[in-house]
């Protein structure tokens, strides 16, 4: 096998190495740090794209670190679905990084800018590592890096509410990580290995069902908090609305999805199909929680006055979408969930960056202040409209395709209640998104609100926003690139 | 004798944990917590894990406790009443 075998590990380690080298550059030339930060991520994205053709849909690439074969050493396992998510992570982190160069100059005090970029790169590298690893303890370690860097990035603006929101996030995140560690311990006590593939085979024939069920429950609680599933989501609205916009775009768009993906891998590749009776009970509970999340998130989003808090609640609702797709236990449902991760990531990142544009240019956070915004900021508003169309799930966008497969999966699974919940969720989404578009386009703004500058935000911030919104459109129209292989991959996972 | 020693350590552990949680004065709580992690280090030594005993002693009793002490000094000694 050619040199491309080493690409996944470099995709993960380059950002981490970049993060470690950043303080040196920060010490020598502060001005270059934002541009230098782009290098490792661009390299990872390039490696990712080079890898695309290499992995056939049903197969996976397994890379033994240190040369030791799996149950003894750690293995990096990249299958088609994993690679697909890694590419999404690379793309969105790169775009948000381009965006944050100017945004950070205004939002974060000078002393902390290098720390911002260091944490940003650590977070991106950890996300890639988290998706690719084939070892559950390694999953925990990367989750911890993710958690730590996201706690700090939420609190980086330093104002009162940011630190309070970050601390609330820590108080909920830290115990959930420990629960994941305990769950890994339970699994280890019963099977003796830590490698996921090996675990799957040993779980199937191990007799200790109570231990496995409880360990699955702990996994669900642990990752549930990280993925902000309904009852465990209290930290999300504060953290995502106070964090600087590129960070809340990353948190909402990616971190939440990656943790949901981890739960998918654990449910399907570790507790495999044969163990569904083990997983069955908790899966229904997750389904009920997800349905509640869709409705709760939607209703709360409608009542919000602050734009970013509204988008945060819509994330809570859309995570419910993803989990409804997962708990349907059908190939279409899983494909829908996967595709929704992509679409939700792109659209939600775009929404938060647009909100960031409003804050950057005029400091407007509340929705009333956006009246007639399109006169002065046409580009941002059109991008916002396009992204929210994808959030609602209107045809030409990727949101429609993912909603199609989510509902198809639930119908095939015969879960009528969840289908109705999904549909009403999309109506709720329509209500709170169209309300914003209505304010922006069809309302006359107060005279002095938008009068002075006729120009929009600097191009450095507009390009990522438009790249993301056109991405949702692109993946909507050209969905045949991904959907067939996703269907095969989910069948392979199931 | 083996289990007797283990049991005493465990009882001590649970006792110090409860006291650390219950203590009103924060500094006292932190000190009791450092005793807790010291006993935990001894416990691990008994379970034939020397590396970890050393680490737990150095990190648990050493660094973590001092970080707590610094925080208590920077904030407030007494726990606030409801």
């Amino acid at each position, binding site marked *: 096998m050619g040199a491309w075998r080493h690409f996944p590990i470099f995709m993960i380690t380059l950002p981490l190495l970049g993060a470690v080298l950043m303080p040196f550059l920060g010490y020598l030339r502060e001005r270059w740090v934002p541009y230098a930060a782009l290098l490792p991520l661009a390299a990872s994205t390039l490696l990712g794209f080079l890898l695309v053709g290499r992995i056939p849909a049903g197969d996976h690439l397994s890379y033994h670190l240190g040369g030791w074969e799996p149950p003894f050493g750690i293995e990096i396992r990249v299958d088609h679905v994993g690679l697909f998510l890694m590419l999404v992570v690379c793309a969105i982190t790169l775009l948000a990084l381009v965006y944050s160069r100017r945004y950070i100059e205004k939002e974060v005090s000078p002393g902390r800018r290098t720390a911002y970029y260091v944490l940003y790169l650590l977070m991106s590298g950890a996300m890639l590592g988290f998706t690719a690893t084939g070892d559950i303890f390694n999953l925990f370690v990367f989750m911890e890096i993710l958690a730590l860097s996201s706690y700090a990035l939420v609190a980086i603006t330093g104002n009162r509410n940011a630190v309070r929101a970050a601390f609330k996030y820590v108080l909920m995140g830290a115990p959930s990580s420990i629960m994941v560690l305990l769950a890994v311990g339970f699994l280890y006590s019963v099977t003796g290995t830590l490698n996921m593939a090996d675990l799957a085979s040993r779980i199937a024939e191990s007799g200790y069902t109570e231990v496995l069920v409880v360990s699955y429950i702990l996994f669900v609680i642990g990752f549930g908090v990280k993925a902000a599933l309904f009852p465990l989501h209290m930290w999300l609205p504060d953290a995502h609305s106070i964090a600087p916009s590129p960070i809340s775009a990353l948190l909402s768009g990616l971190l939440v999805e990656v943790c949901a993906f981890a739960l998918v891998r654990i449910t399907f590749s570790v507790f495999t199909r044969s163990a569904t009776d083990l997983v069955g009970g908790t899966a229904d509970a997750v389904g009920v929680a997800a349905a509640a999340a869709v409705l709760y998130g939607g209703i709360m989003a409608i009542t919000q006055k602050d734009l970013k808090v509204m988008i945060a609640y819509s994330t809570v609702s859309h995570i419910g979408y993803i989990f409804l797709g997962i708990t349907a236990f059908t190939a279409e449902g899983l494909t829908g969930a996967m595709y929704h991760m992509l679409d939700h990531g792109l659209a939600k990142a775009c929404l938060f960056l647009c909100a960031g544009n409003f804050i950057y240019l005029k400091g407007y956070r509340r929705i009333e202040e956006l009246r007639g915004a399109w006169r002065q900021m046409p580009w941002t508003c059109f991008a916002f409209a396009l992204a929210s169309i994808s959030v609602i799930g209107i045809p030409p966008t990727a949101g429609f395709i993912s909603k199609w497969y989510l509902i198809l999966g639930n*119908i095939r699974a015969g879960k009528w209640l969840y289908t109705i919940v999904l549909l009403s969720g999309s109506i709720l989404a329509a209500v709170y998104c169209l309300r914003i578009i209505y304010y922006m386009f069809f309302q006359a703004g107060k005279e002095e609100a938008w009068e002075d500058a006729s120009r929009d935000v600097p191009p450095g911030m507009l390009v990522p926003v438009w790249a993301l919104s056109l991405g949702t459109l692109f993946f909507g129209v050209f969905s045949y690139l991904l959907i067939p292989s996703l269907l095969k991959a989910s069948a392979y996972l199931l | 004798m083996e289990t007797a020693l283990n049991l005493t350590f465990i009882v001590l552990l649970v006792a110090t944990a409860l006291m650390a949680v219950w203590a009103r004065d924060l500094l006292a709580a932190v000190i009791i917590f450092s005793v807790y992690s010291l006993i935990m280090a001894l416990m691990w030594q008994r379970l034939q894990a020397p590396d970890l005993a050393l680490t737990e002693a150095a990190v648990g009793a050493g660094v973590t406790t001092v970080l707590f002490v610094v925080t208590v000094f920077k904030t407030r000694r007494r726990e606030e009443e409801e």
Partner: protein
Amino acid sequence: MPDKSTFSVIPLIVILLPWISLLAILAFPKKAERLRLWLCALGSLASFGLLFSLLPGILDGKTYTIKLASVVESLEMRLTVDTLGFYFALILAFLWMLATIYSISYIDHKHNRFFAFMAMCESFILGCAFSANMFTYFIFYEMMTFGSYPLIIHEETTIARRAGYKYLVYAVAAGTVLFFAIVAHYFWGNGELGFGSYGVLSLEFASRAALTTIFFTYLAGFGVKAAIMPLHGWVPDAHPAAPSPASALLSGVILKAGAFGIIRVCFNVFGTDLLRELGVYVVMAVLACITIVVASVFALTQDNLKRRLAYSSIGQVSYIILGLAMLAHDGALGGVMHLTHHALMKGCLFLCAGVILVKTGKKNISEMAGVGYQLPITMICFSVCALAMMGTPPSVGFITKWLLGSGALQASLPVYIIILLVSALLNAAYFLPIIYIAFFRWEGDEVEGHGETHRPKLVFGKEADHKLVVPIVILALLVVVVGIWSNVTGFPYSLVSRVVNVIFP
């Protein structure tokens, strides 16, 4: 799919042509007012012309198809021009062309936005007409909803905003219900969303309950746009709020998109014998009858001209659904042909209402005394179309009522004839007063009591701008001409009979 489907890119070009006007707007947004507006009109003119060039091919049964994009093999966006699609697209493009010309001089503010969304909406509805499977139909249908919203709230008055809001609420709800219907159809028809000539679904795949749920969710989803009674709420508010060309299109074409959807569902998705077997057509028929009667009664009570026309539209569209529900050859023929007939008649009426509004500023019927003398040509066309709506012999309206009647006889259900007669009476009841007030009353005549007072002279000179009147005259002429020489090749009868004969041999 009929075997003779040749690949051709014409359907795609026809859809993209209206976007020329969009380019025109972007090219020179501020200056060259005249050129820009005529370019917009050119967009819809060109698409109608290209469409008309397809007529000979369609007449000898050829269909043109092109694949736009696909998600999975069984789920693809494909455009196909078959006879039914062509028939709907023909009238759609024709009416849109006239409305665009009409609105060049009618719209006085925010031209760019209006023409941009007008063009987009037209291309989406053409997409609906040409869609080869329900997936494509739904995509264009949803995009049409969001394309037509700005048309309704063009005036930006509070009434328009509230009407637009109500329209959105109905449309989004309908979209969701329709979405469920399509996914269920995709699941139970195991992947077959296309339009088979005898219907695609059948009982051995799915249970009876499943098929009925699919049918009723389709009916509800399309019913909102086709303004079936319980779901018609948005129509009476949207029409008066929208500028006249927009409301002409709204009732002439956008309501028909819903009706066309139901036609596709009944003919191509379920197929008539499956409908008869499921027995769901009875519900459809009952709903249609209720809508016809109740809408006409409401129309009586409305003083605002446009609201009255809106209610009459709701009634007339249900004629189509009634025709379908009869499951008889003539009934289906009458119903599908009424699609065009009503578009011609109602389009003309709304445009006349627009002219009255522009020239005399009058909105309510009670104030329109003597309008006939000030705007003779407009009011004559108005009367011709009003009479046609009532079903007087030489006009298209008469053909529809005649066919529906004979369809009812064929289906041996005399109760429909009674419904038709009642509705004809009601139509007369709410159209004749308008004509009477317009011509036989004039200001100041009731002052002197019953005495003969000088009758105002017919003033021909001061008619509205020629760009407003010409479309009205064309439509009025067509209403009569198509009525008399109905079996001329290009006209509705030739196309629809070809379709219906296949379904009801």
